[in-house]
């Protein structure tokens, strides 16, 4: 398990977890928490549709290893293994939009809600808009005016995912931590977020990934995200927000291999009250694991510019 001899993996309760231990989970005498963590990881990896936040009490009390400044050390590559990118609310498995050519490749897995209470508290008119979003989720409109955003799922066009969606896209992301700034780099689109810890900074204008200021509450990294634009969605199901969106994220280490992710989502234009999501983030522990670039721009150029006659050179 020693992935990087210079920068050792965090220890759990004084026992250094070994790869042996992970492999021999069944029947091996392992640290109990590690065994549970591993079983949870294995189960959820095998059947992502059943993934959900660990129940309270599943993990024993845990103190995270410290970074050099004494704060919990969140450095690492993390990934959610849930199906919220298809729908943050509970959803059955479904065929893709073009099963005649995509077969099962385009299909979406079923999954349970990551929303506390199960359902997003939409205002009635906003719920109608959400349904309309879903109907036209594959609409694409490349134009020279802001109507280009009045379209389907931004993910389809390789737009940045925004917050919180970037955290549960089916791609890993990496956290780099210093006392003054925490950097998050997402494999999807190579999107970058800087979380200003000290000093906090003021958002200059709205953006796709928003503006993040952070602080520690005990072992929890709390991030206040503002200045998000209204072009991103929460998922492929058309769940959406306005530019009044305000997200407060909480990242809490619950084992050497897991962070509990929670976010409170507030947008008085769209929702009747603030609502909460939560799910675990899993540490990617493979030897030499790294983000592999997912620069999707070239993948959508034909989709976006083809209908305008701009993708392929015109034939004469």
């Amino acid at each position, binding site marked *: 398990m020693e992935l*990087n*001899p*210079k*920068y050792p993996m965090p220890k759990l309760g004084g026992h250094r977890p070994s790869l042996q231990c992970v492999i021999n989970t069944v029947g091996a005498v392992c640290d109990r928490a590690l065994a549970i963590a591993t079983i949870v990881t294995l189960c959820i990896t095998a059947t992502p549709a059943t993934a959900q936040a660990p129940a309270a009490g599943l993990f024993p009390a845990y103190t995270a290893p410290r970074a*050099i*400044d004494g704060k919990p050390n969140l*450095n690492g590559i993390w990934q959610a293994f849930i199906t919220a990118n298809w729908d943050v609310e509970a959803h059955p498995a479904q065929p893709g939009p073009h099963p005649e050519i995509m077969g099962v490749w385009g299909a979406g897995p079923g999954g349970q809600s990551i929303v506390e209470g199960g359902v997003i508290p939409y205002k009635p008119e906003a719920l109608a808009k959400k349904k309309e979003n879903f109907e036209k989720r594959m609409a694409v409109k*490349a*134009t*020279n005016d802001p109507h280009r955003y009045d379209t389907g799922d931004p993910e389809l066009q*390789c*737009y*940045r995912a925004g917050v919180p969606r970037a955290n549960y896209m089916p791609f890993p992301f*990496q956290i*780099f*931590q*210093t*006392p003054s*700034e925490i*950097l998050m*780099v997402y494999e999807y689109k*190579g*999107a*970058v977020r*800087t979380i*200003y810890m000290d000093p906090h*900074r003021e958002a*200059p*204008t709205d*953006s*796709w*990934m928003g503006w993040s200021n952070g602080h520690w509450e005990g072992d929890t990294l709390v991030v206040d995200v503002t200045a998000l634009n209204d*072009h991103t969605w929460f998922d492929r199901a058309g769940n959406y927000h306005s530019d009044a969106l305000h997200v407060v994220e909480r990242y809490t280490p619950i084992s050497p291999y897991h962070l509990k992710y929670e976010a409170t989502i507030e947008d008085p234009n769209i929702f009747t009250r603030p609502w909460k999501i939560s799910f675990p983030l899993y540490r990617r522990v493979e030897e*030499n694991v*790294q*983000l*592999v*670039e997912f*620069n999707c*721009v*070239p993948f959508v*150029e*034909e989709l976006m*510019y083809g209908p*305008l*006659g*701009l*993708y*392929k*050179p*015109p*034939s*004469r």
Partner: protein
Amino acid sequence: MLHRVLALLTAVVILCGPVLMAQAPSGTKAFDPKAVDPETAIKAAAAAAKAAAAAAANWTPPRTTWGDPDLQGYWLTATYTPLQRPPELAGKAFYTEEEALAAFKKAVESDAEVDPRTVHYDWKEYGMDAWQSPVRPNRRTSLIFNPENGRLPALTPEAQKRQADGRAAARARNPQVGVQTLNNWYTRCITGNNAGPMTRGGNPGSDSAAGAAGVTAEAQIFQAPGYAVLIMQSNSDARIIPLDGRPHLPSNVRNWLGDSRGHWEGNTLVVETTNFIAPGTNFLGGTARTKLTERFSLAGPNTLRYEFTLDDPATWTQPWSAETLIPRIDPPLYEFACHEQNYGLMNVVKGAQTREAEAEAKKK
């Protein structure tokens, strides 16, 4: 004010037509362009260069809390110094300080001058000319120092043939432009201006600020235990550099920004990058097999020494190296959501197609 600048930038990009460039970052510093004139800027740059040199004396390079040399901060890669040494300076690798300032002054004045009859828009109105930033004069007459003549090495026969074939193919296409055939990755928002080598030198006399010294030339170096991350304002390109000696990705796994590995040699961060998809215009003709080696070190508290070597036996008869000094700037970087608001691309391609159709019609 900020919103007005952004609106203007957007308008300008829409009007840009066939000028091959992408748009400005999503956020741009509020800026009063009338606050700085070229003369004031030249004096300030000279003073900043002097101060930087003075600060480098009796100075110990800092370390991170975990013990690595500390290169962190925000940096500006813009420079008026050309990549290749101008022929009239043959044999002269360095200016004197006075000559360097005179060359800088000349470059700034030429950059600031705009012909109102031909200009698409005047960059300095938006604070985007390089002299309106902390760009400094440089004693080098060219960024290239190897080969010693300060010029790109000769192309290999293979590269000569490749380039001739490319030109012939472009003529045979007779001529047709689509997004698909645009080889400028920045225009398509695939990579930014500073993907690959962080700077490719200035082009004094160029009529665009991008050509003259580089725009959106801001960069950030971020470090954490075991890693360095290089973030470019242009296209918000982020290059993650593991420092643990792990092997490169297999050769079939290729990235637009390549695959970087770094290590420390004393206080210098040495980064080797391979596995490129297609280096394109940022690599001056190099192929996807190009190996980029970069050396980052501090030359003073507020100055980054940046050296890079491009090696591609399929293109150049020898590896070549360039070096520049990069001033520290204030945070932060802004999100550069290039593809999300690529209003320019459609007009670039439409304009080119229209011009080609007209040219075709004339021939008939």
